[in-house]
């Protein structure tokens, strides 16, 4: 009896851990996917027909052992980069990714020159 109880709790614990791992991964992915037929909603937030289908597909792909990147690549291939909120870095959106760093460096240079000028005075 004692062994049966221990086995029961081990299996239960294993299932709970699995469920937590799945929900964390799938939620992260679904939140980064845009619902294409809703206004400003992610797939995770939407209950539309499209979002429901994508949820099933993402769940299936996770169960098939696909990585987060593989799932994004698959959906980008089918729907274009618009489907992801955080698009991957490529030559088209290069400026989008690099601009914050350029702005930071330019800002630093401007502040440096401004301070230098003030010191000279």
């Amino acid at each position, binding site marked *: 009896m004692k062994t049966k109880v221990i086995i029961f709790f081990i299996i239960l614990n294993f299932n709970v851990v699995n469920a937590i791992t799945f929900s964390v991964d799938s939620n992260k992915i679904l939140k980064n996917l845009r619902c294409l037929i809703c206004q400003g909603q992610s797939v995770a937030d939407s209950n539309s027909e499209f979002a429901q289908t994508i949820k099933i597909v993402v769940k299936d792909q996770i169960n098939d052992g696909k990585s987060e990147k593989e799932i994004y690549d698959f959906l980008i291939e089918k729907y274009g980069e618009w489907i992801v909120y955080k698009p991957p870095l490529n030559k088209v959106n290069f400026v989008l990714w690099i601009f914050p760093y350029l702005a930071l460096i*330019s800002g630093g240079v401007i502040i440096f020159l401004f301070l230098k000028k003030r010191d000279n005075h």
Partner: protein
Amino acid sequence: MQKKIIKLSIILLIIFIIGVFFIGLNKNSIYDTKNLVGQKITKIELEHFSDNRIITAGDLRKNNFTLINFWASWCGPCRAEHPILLKLNEEKNLELLGVNFKDKKNNALEFLKDLGDPYDDLARDELGKHSINFGIYGIPESILINKDLVIIKKFIGPISKNDYNYIKNIVRQ
């Protein structure tokens, strides 16, 4: 010199911001899948509506042109495009593959009985999962592909008379 650099940086920044707004505001923000035209459909695995078999890429390679039409009996606009599909069925160079999307089998059969069956082959996508392989995000949607399974055109929404003429011209060439 320093003053000039600061002035130039500010001017460049303003030009950049105006440029971003100009491009951004002129861009069509309505999503479509036009960029998928020219892409090859790699994975086709559709459950046949009535037979116990899978419709694969090999089946579609036999046709010169295939129009894959996603429809359901509960979809109003599908009813509107149905007469055009029946007319397209008369084209010799074109095969019509219907994909019944998230529908009840009986309702789908009733729909075809009432309005006519334009399809040369009929598949079923009960959960809508297989439609994702075709970049479908709503129905009705149709995809015109050639023998090499390359997408020639995607039709979002019901097929119009203009679309009918376009398809007719393509398949008769």
